[in-house]
C-alpha cells in the first residue's frame, strides 16, 4: 500500500472504531437503564397494595 492508501484506510478504520465506541456507550446506557428498571420493579412489588379510597357501605 502506498502512504496515501495507508492514511485513507486508517481514516476508514477510525470511523468504524468511532461507531463501535458509540455501541459501547449505548451498551453502558442500557446497562444503567436495566439496573434502574429492576430497582423500580423491586420497589413496586415491595410496596403494600394501595388501599381502595372508597368507603365501605353497609348493604341491606
Amino acid at each position, binding site marked *: 500500500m502506498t502512504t496515501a492508501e495507508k492514511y485513507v484506510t486508517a481514516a476508514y478504520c477510525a470511523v468504524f472504531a468511532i461507531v463501535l465506541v458509540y455501541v*459501547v456507550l449505548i451498551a453502558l446506557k442500557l446497562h444503567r*437503564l436495566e439496573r434502574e428498571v429492576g430497582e423500580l420493579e423491586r420497589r413496586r412489588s415491595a410496596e403494600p397494595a394501595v388501599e381502595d379510597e372508597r368507603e365501605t357501605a353497609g348493604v341491606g
Partner: protein
Amino acid sequence: MNVVGRSYRIPLPALAAASLVLVTTALAMAFYVVPNDADQGFSQRVFYFHVPIAFTAYACFAGGAWKAFRHLWKRDPNADLESYVAVHQGLIFGSLVLITGSIWAKISWGHWWLWSEDQLVLFLVLFLFYSAYFMLRFSVDPGPQRANLSAVYALFGVVLIPVSFLAIRIAKHFIHPIVFTSNVSSNLPGWMLVTYCVAQVALLVLAYTLYRVELSGKWLDARIRELRTA
C-alpha cells in the same frame, strides 16, 4: 406472564468493549499486517470480512432456529423474542454479505452481480426468505400464535439453507457451464489464517453484542410498559 427477560453472565458494556477491540484489531490486521495476496492483489482483503460475515449470518439464523425450537418444544417464555432478534441480526449480516460480495464481484470480475458465486446466490435466497419472516411476523397480532408461526418459519429456514445450497450447486450444471475459480483458497498461510480467525471471532462477538443490545432495548420497553400499566 413474567416479562423480566433473561439474566446474562457477561455484562453488556464488557461485550461491547470486547467487540470494539476485536473488530478494530481485525481491521488493522487485515489492512496493515497481512501481505497482499499473490493472485488477487489488494481486493482479496475483503474476504477477511466477507466470509466471516457470512458465517456469522449462518450462526445468527441457526441461533434463531434454536430459540424457535426452544419456544415450540420447551415453552421457554423468552425464546420467541430471542429468536426474532437473532433472525433480525442474521438478516442484517446477510445484507452485508450481499453488499461486500457484490463489491468484490465488481472489483474482480467487473460485474456487480455474479450468478456463478454460490454463496452470493444462497444469501439472495435467504434474504428473500428471512425478509418474508418479517412480513409474516408483522401481519399477525402479538400473541402466542404470532410466536408459533414465527418459530415454525425460522425452523424452515435452517432446513432451507443446506437444501438451497445443494440446489444452487446442482443448478450450475445447466445454468453456467463455465466454472469461475473459487474465491477463498482453502489453506491460508501464516498471518492470513490468524487474521481470518481474528476477524471471525470479532464479527461473532459483534453480532452477539448487537443481539444483546437489541434484546435489552426490547425487554426494557416491555418492562417499562408493564410498570406503567401495573
